């Protein structure tokens, strides 16, 4: 059972729909005992860094996530859910993130249009991005996309924590493949 964390940050139904299409059991969860039993955790998310962290705090989810991370449960953050895996966000105000990955999240520094919206290529194919903020490019970055003159971290990974800046659940067959690979290792 995969726990899709329910913390009021946008469209979670697309993540649940994708799990259903892949034949994987997933459930929207906010309760600690259920989340702790999950074989994998997906942190979805669209919206602002500050609101995401505020909601996780209010719903008492941060300790649970920390526990799961510590005991080795696989965690996948998608879009904003990936960004909050980092140490700090600078969307509006400086906000502390979960700190599972080193680095910060800030506005994409480019003269190109923002949001960075649409299909962009990583090594395995084209995937769908929509975001204006990005994570620092660090050693944990395993895939990146080029936008204007910027290299945007697209997949980050360290130990049992992985993040996708793009939306695998909206990225057709390529996105399915990436999710299948993550799920196969649960």
């Amino acid at each position: 059972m995969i726990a899709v964390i329910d913390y009021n940050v946008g469209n979670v139904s697309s993540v649940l729909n994708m799990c259903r299409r892949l034949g994987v059991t997933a459930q929207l969860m906010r309760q600690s005992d259920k989340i702790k039993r999950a074989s994998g955790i997906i942190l979805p998310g669209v919206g602002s860094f500050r609101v995401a962290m505020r909601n996780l705090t209010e719903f008492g989810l941060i300790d649970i996530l920390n526990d799961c991370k510590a005991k080795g449960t696989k965690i996948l953050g998608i879009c904003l859910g990936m960004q909050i895996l980092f140490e700090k966000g600078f969307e509006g105000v400086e906000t502390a993130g979960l700190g599972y990955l080193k680095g910060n999240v800030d506005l994409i520094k480019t003269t190109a249009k923002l949001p960075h919206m649409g299909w962009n290529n990583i090594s395995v194919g084209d995937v769908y991005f929509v975001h204006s903020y990005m994570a620092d490019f660090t050693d944990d970055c395993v895939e990146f996309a080029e936008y204007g003159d910027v290299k945007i971290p697209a997949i980050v990974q360290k130990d049992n924590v992985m993040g996708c800046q793009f939306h695998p659940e909206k990225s057709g067959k390529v996105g399915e493949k990436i999710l299948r690979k993550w799920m196969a290792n649960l």
Partner: protein
Amino acid sequence: MLKKRIIPCLDIANGKVVKGVNFVDLVDVGDPVEVAKRYEQQCADEVVFLDITATYENRDIIYDLIRRAARELSIPLAIGGGIRTVDDFRKILSCGADKVTINSSAVANPNLIRKASEEFGKQCVVVAIDGKLLDNQYKVFVEGGRKNTGLDLVEWAKKCETLGAGEILLTSMDGDGTQNGYDITMTNAVCNSVNIPVIASGGCGSVDDIIDVFRKTNCDAALVASLFHYAMATVRDVKIQMERSDIPCRILMD
């Protein structure tokens, strides 16, 4: 590199595709979800459902449709038609749509752009603008091109960006339905004044028209309706031609 998007647009009335859609091997498919799935298989980058009836009684039909479409599609889905409030946004997004397109309600109440953008993020707020040339000036029209709002097209587009629109869907009312090609001048006028993605729409009659709008403007996507619906070309045909023309696009790999 970011790819130029091809977005099929389906006009929907009472939960069915208006006039039906013809595929080479199948005539008159009425279910929007079936049509959208076909377009996804042909490598459409996104799909728009435009509810042209959009009356209060029909809302449940469209919500049901969005839920079904969201279950089946793994590409982004945008919904337009009759959206007036932040609550309408919430309902449509909670059914599984990724973007909401507003047009006349944005003109009547520009604050809706700001409110929706603050509440749900600008990525899901698409402002559709219908432009028309009048005495050598581009003006914003509503009600399907019947009513002149008096607003200057470029000024309105800039205002939408400032208010928090994530994208602009720009339709040329002069071109719409003519199949004479996209309005290059109008598209350029808007693309050159905003720094958010612009979808060109209205007038597409051939694959060449799509190539043309990508070559001659800085638009990010092209909205296509009858060319696909009447099976004059498939999305795949367009992508092949785009690739030959060195326009960055997403090609489906099997």
